[in-house]
């Protein structure tokens, strides 16, 4: 197998909490990302799912070096970004780009579409100035926007169109991997479909790798090759997309899949839903051992005793549950 384009090795992002102004006391640590190891292949779409507080957004920001990692490494095309200088990280931004969740907040309202798309090209000096307009027009066409709108401002577009601009901005430097953090959550179903199709087409055409973060499992299943499930800063399950959703092995993944409402009245009324007790735990005060055990129907003493490692099963699936073979 060829070398992965992006490799995360035991990545941890911890945020210390302090009390007091003059004499700071360390009162706690938010372990947002707590030991994530993952590899993304060239041209692969890797879906990352989890609920609020699981650390998926912090993970995205850590990969992009927007937030410093506490320990562990982020290796992009063989280069270790966590140990790199600021100048090297800047250069790496050409290969690694991000699309954010909020189409209304991620675009500068005072810049025209042209200025937004030209900015990365000018900053990284990837082409002579007189070519910029032509490239901006091409980018807009690539995402399905008419180039004649390039002098308009973000507020003149709909949510779906703004998200297309955000995708165009991410493509401006011809990256090899894009991290999309909930790119369609704020959009209506019919518009979601358009943006998902756009991503799928770009991945195919440009052999892009895509890390697709979302909480909507049906969306993630459709577009991803593999899916990783996160819970309280750790990956609890990893495998081929359709299989993880149709035959989930980890108890949390099972509950997550069970909670998705399906548009089929008879099936909905017949199904036995797993309704989890309690709220998701706080990363400030994680449970001992397996973070999911307080809410798990299958928990035993050994679940409380030690943190379960992510282990590979015979069929290639990776699951972090000591009881996975029994349940």
């Amino acid at each position: 197998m060829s070398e992965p384009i992006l490799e995360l090795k035991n990545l941890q992002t911890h945020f210390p909490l302090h009390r007091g102004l003059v004499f700071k006391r360390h009162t706690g640590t938010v372990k947002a990302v707590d030991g994530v190891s993952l590899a993304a292949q060239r041209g692969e779409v890797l879906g990352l799912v989890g609920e609020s507080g699981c650390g998926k957004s912090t993970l995205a920001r850590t990969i992009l070096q927007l937030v410093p990692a506490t320990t562990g490494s982020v290796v992009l095309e063989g280069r270790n970004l966590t140990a790199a200088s600021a100048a090297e990280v800047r250069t790496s931004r050409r290969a690694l780009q991000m699309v954010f969740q909020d189409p209304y907040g991620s675009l500068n309202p005072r810049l025209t579409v042209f200025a937004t798309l030209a900015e990365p090209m000018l900053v990284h000096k990837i082409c002579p100035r007189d070519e910029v307009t032509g490239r901006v027009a091409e980018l807009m066409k690539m995402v399905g926007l008419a180039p004649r709108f390039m002098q308009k401002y973000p507020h003149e577009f709909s949510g779906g169109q703004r998200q297309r601009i955000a995708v165009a901005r991410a493509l401006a430097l011809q990256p090899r991997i894009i991290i999309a953090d909930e790119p369609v959550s704020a959009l209506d179903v019919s518009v979601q479909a358009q943006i998902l199709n756009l991503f799928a087409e770009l991945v195919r055409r440009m052999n892009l790798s895509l890390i697709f973060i979302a909480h909507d499992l049906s969306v993630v299943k459709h577009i991803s090759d593999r899916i990783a499930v996160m819970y309280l800063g750790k990956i609890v399950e990893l495998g081929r997309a359709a299989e993880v959703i149709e035959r989930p092995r980890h108890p949390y993944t099972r509950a997550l899949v069970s909670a998705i409402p399906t548009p089929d009245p008879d099936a909905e009324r017949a199904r036995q839903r797993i309704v989890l007790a309690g709220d998701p735990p706080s990363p400030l005060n994680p449970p001992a051992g397996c973070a999911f055990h307080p809410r798990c129907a299958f928990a035993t003493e050994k679940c409380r005793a030690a943190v379960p490692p992510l282990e590979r099963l015979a069929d290639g699936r990776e699951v972090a549950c000591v009881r996975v073979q029994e349940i």
Partner: protein
Amino acid sequence: MPLLEVSGLRTYFHTRNAIHRAVDGVSFTVEKGETLGIVGESGSGKSVTCYSIMGLLPQPPGRIEAGSAIFDGIDLLRCPPKVARSVRGKRIAMIFQDPMTSLNPYLRISEQLIEPLIIHEKISRSSAVRRGVEMLEAVGMNDAARRIDRYPHEFSGGMCQRVMIAMALITRPELLIADEPTTALDVTVQAQILELIRRLQRELGMAVIFITHDLGVVAGLCDRVLVMYAGRAVETAGVRAIFYQPRHPYTRALQRSIPSTQPKGAALFTIPGLPPDLSTLAAGCAFAPRCESATGLCLGQDPPLVEVAPGHASACLRVQAGEI
């Protein structure tokens, strides 16, 4: 007789440049104890319809131009304010989308929770607090007697939504209007909240209007469904009929757009074009410009909502003519 009967509701927003016809001739009924789902995308008018009924519309720029909303013989849109106040908050309650912003951050939960009781019922404060604690326990809050004195920011999103449900149901209303109450919540928390609403509905025998864009939630929760597009009602039927025999091109297109119903790897079906600008609606069916079955007749005539099968109405001329 239905519990609530809305007829010909028209709510327009008058801005400097244009008139936005947010709700443009919507009629529906809700029977005692039933759950009606109102489905539509952003801009369909589903929230404005319910805000109009509840008197939560900012007037100006909003204005209820026409229509009636008869609740137990009282027209909520025309009755004296005193009568309206005796119904809203007491017999009809509403919960909203984002629980973190719908609760007053300056007041303890106890104050907010007992406010409807203090206003609508003549009971002492201590009795009201006792009812408040009971209600919080009913919605699944542990240690309610102690936590009732906390502030909203001390609770998670799911817990805040439970508090809001407790506030809405504390007067044992006959009708609950829920405006996208689970859209901002995680899917496992959503499952808990929907389960809670189902249980309380059974216990109180109340009717529910559930506004959402999520067809999966509608399938599991609702008895009947109203589909809205561009401020109009385009289809209404029982939940099984809406999903298994949809009779409007928009409803059919909406169901086709859901990712879970489509094969992996294939491009997703998309409805071409964009929802219309509600200030420049031309005559004719609002969906016609995007409809794959539209004919010249569709662009010329405003289609009325007509029964096309028992208990099933559609605002599509071609469906009414039996063509599609």
